[in-house]
């Protein structure tokens, strides 16, 4: 393997505890980086604030999908029962709301849940079958006992030397380059 020929993909700093990671994330946020992420072996409370993450817009997408589902369920039953194939069932009107509520409810949930799942994946750009980070030997411990802050080379403020110096100033265990391979 030749490390020198592969283009630089990013820079990663390694930490071994939560409070250092949170402090480092706050500094990275304040330094104005945009394309960066924190990797932890378990959910860390307060990390979203420390990273300065915006509120997710997912609820609005899910709400829209839910309303769409409700209207779809209602229209479906109106069309099938009252227009396309009118059929009197147990003496009720062809289009009667109480009988339609269960399907409207189920369609609301179906649309909202599937949309939430799909939109979450899209918003997080998942699934990613390949990520250069996974080739790093050290990064494997991100699922065990180590915390990582990774700044991508795609970030407008990224500069190999200055970003390395910045990450080293955060006081982690190590700073390594991540090659795009």
């Amino acid at each position, binding site marked *: 393997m030749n490390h020198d020929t592969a283009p630089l993909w990013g820079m990663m700093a390694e930490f071994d505890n939560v409070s250092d990671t949170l402090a480092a994330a706050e500094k990275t946020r304040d330094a104005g980086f945009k394309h960066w992420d924190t990797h932890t072996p378990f959910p860390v*409370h307060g990390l979203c604030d420390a990273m300065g993450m915006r509120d997710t817009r997912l*609820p609005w997408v899910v709400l829209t999908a839910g309303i769409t589902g409700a209207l779809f369920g209602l229209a479906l039953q109106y069309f099938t029962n009252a227009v396309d194939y009118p059929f009197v069932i147990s003496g009720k009107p062809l289009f009667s709301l*109480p009988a339609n*509520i269960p399907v409207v409810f189920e369609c609301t949930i179906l649309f909202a849940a599937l949309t939430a799942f799909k939109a979450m994946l899209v918003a997080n750009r998942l699934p990613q079958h390949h990520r250069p980070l996974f080739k790093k030997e050290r990064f494997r411990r991100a699922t065990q006992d180590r915390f990582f802050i990774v700044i991508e080379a795609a970030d407008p403020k990224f500069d190999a030397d200055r970003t390395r110096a910045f990450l080293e100033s955060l006081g982690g265990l190590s700073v390594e380059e991540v090659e795009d391979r």
Partner: protein
Amino acid sequence: MHTHLIDITKEKRFLGSLGQRLTLGGGVAGIVGLAVSFGLASTSEDGIHRLWWSYLHNWTFFLTIALGALFFVLVEHLAKAGWSVVLRRLSEGVSMTLVLLAILFVPLIFGLHDLYHWLHADLVAQDHVLQHKASYLNQTFFLVRVAVYFLFWIGAAFLMHRNSVKQDQSGDHLLTGKMEALSAPFMMIFALTTTFASFDLLMSLDPHWFSTIFGVYFFAGSFMSFLAFLSVIIVGLQRSGRLTGAITDQHLHDVGKFLFAMLVFWAYIAFSQYLLIWYGNLPEETGWYLRRQTGTWSSLGIVMIFGHFLIPFLFLLSRHIKRRPLLLSLGALWLLVMHWLDLYWLIMPEYDHALTAIPFSLLDLSCLVGIGGFFIAAWAWFLRRCSLIAEKDPRLAESLTFENA
């Protein structure tokens, strides 16, 4: 950890003078409210008869809140919940008001004849259905059952509260294990007693009608109204400077989520009951709904659909509202009003089947003030000496640092 554990000993965590004011003010409101009710009733024709209905309605309103509290205490022990430890003492206080409600049931014994027409021997003599039900629906068995319900409810509330307060002193973790072990059988008995209490106290107002889901409906409104009441007392206490650090927007958010879930659950159960009866269209079941769809009663039903479900559903949907004390308590107050109207809708159409207009009366409000005053007073009285937090609960630290994902 990054998050700092707050020092609860620096927190204002006793009711103190506020408790005295609440006990005194509540007691005065209670006496005045009930005295005014009695005065109004005795000076109007048929007033005493009407008074019993208002009394039952408002007594049930507070009973549901207290039962919701008992459920909350039990379910948190049962699930070994960590997040809610800071809310438990406040809830224990609410569940202890069952003692007061048992006392306030005593006058009702004299009004049973005005409320339950299965107690009228002449009516039963002409009624085949009631004769069949007489082995269950008779005065002695009814009173024995109510006594058993209250014996269990008060016993459960008392055991949970006493052990929890004991732990404040000793810090004995075994007490937590004991309460958790008790909560499992208690929960089963709670389910049975509340279901049968709803049958006996409310469903038997129309002894011909039956709905197997009625107990769940009663429970849904009960737990929802308790969560609404809890939100209001949390916000109230924090405005008085108490528990400002221990209870955070994270706890409010979770109470709000619970409240939201239960208002949806209420709607789900209410609709389930309606759908089956509407579809089946059997006269012995539909009569109950027919009365509630006649005259002005039907508008109260519409108020339920929008006011008890759709409007608060949209209002409490957003996390930003659930995390803001003022907005959450506003939604909670709204839902308390709706729960009060929901019970009105359950009870009052049975007052007089010939009436098609809602028989609103000043008695409904004076009884609310009267029983409500005593209710607040009892809550403050039961918490007069102990801390408002379960101080040495083994999961307190977890609760204090709790954060939603």
